[in-house]
């Protein structure tokens, strides 16, 4: 009569239901919406390459790029976040632009409602090339042909 004792325990032991609209909390490792920090992004586009569902779009422009993310297209695999973290580590940075929030994504009513795009100016980490000086340097020989030139 195990089932009857189980039913009795359930009847008097209270229910295990999360009453609507409360929601149970998710674990720490839960993969939710991908979050983008424009200040930390170097524009390498590894996330777009690694994305399985083509949720991330990357358009490179002159001195700036546009990064966009559609949570409706996303499959929440986390490859973009992993790729960003690996690349940042290789370059010696402690922080990276992409992270994943531990919360379930919200419901929406119209297609494309959750999509957002950022236009980020490229960071100048490379020094611009220096133009050589026009004034002749003292004692600087002009490059000659190998055969002895007439003096």
């Amino acid at each position, binding site marked *: 009569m195990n089932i009857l004792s189980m039913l009795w325990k359930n009847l008097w032991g209270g229910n295990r239901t*999360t009453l609507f609209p409360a929601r*149970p909390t998710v674990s720490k490792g839960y993969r939710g919406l991908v979050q983008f920090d424009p200040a930390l992004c170097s524009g390498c586009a590894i996330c777009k390459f690694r994305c399985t569902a083509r949720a991330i779009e990357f358009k490179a422009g002159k001195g700036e790029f546009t990064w966009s993310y559609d949570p409706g297209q996303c499959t929440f695999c986390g490859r973009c976040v992993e790729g960003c973290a690996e690349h940042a580590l290789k370059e010696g940075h402690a922080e990276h632009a992409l992270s994943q929030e531990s919360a379930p994504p919200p419901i929406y009513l119209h*297609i494309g409602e959750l999509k957002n795009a950022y236009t980020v100016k490229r960071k100048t980490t490379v020094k611009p090339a220096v133009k050589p000086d026009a004034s002749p340097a003292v004692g600087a020989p002009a490059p000659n042909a190998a055969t002895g030139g007439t003096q």
Partner: protein
Amino acid sequence: MNLWNKLMCYSRRHSPWLFHMNSGSCNGCDIELVASLTPRYDAEQLGVRLEGSPRHADILCITGPVTHNAVNAIHTVYDQVLGPKAVVAIGSCPATTNVFIDSRTLDGPLNKHIPVDVFVPGCPPRPDAIIQGVAKAAEILAARGNNPPATEIVIAETPAEVQP
């Protein structure tokens, strides 16, 4: 009769009956949908009942990116659902075909075929997210029932078999 209308609106909101349909899904979303009827999430506290026939249901819950084989079935089932109705697209697949984008076996996102009211993203969405989506669809359904849209929804006359 304002009182009757209010009562009808309240009843529609508090008694959403679902019909679940799979249009080529990997079954992850289907499992989470029936998990929402388990004691932890208990969709029945909202009056939700998973019905066996589309004629009984108000809300059509569709999972899966729409495969070619499923297009006719979706149209048939959508026509079989009667009266004020709402459609919930569960998972990212019906909304945007997710990872199956550009696949040759698919026929586009769901809203290419039928009007969708609520999208529940996730792969798969959590059961509590599905319940939220169903509750929102019940609200939309109640508002729509008392203000029916201008276009008539065509209903299939002959009883057609529901294709799995």
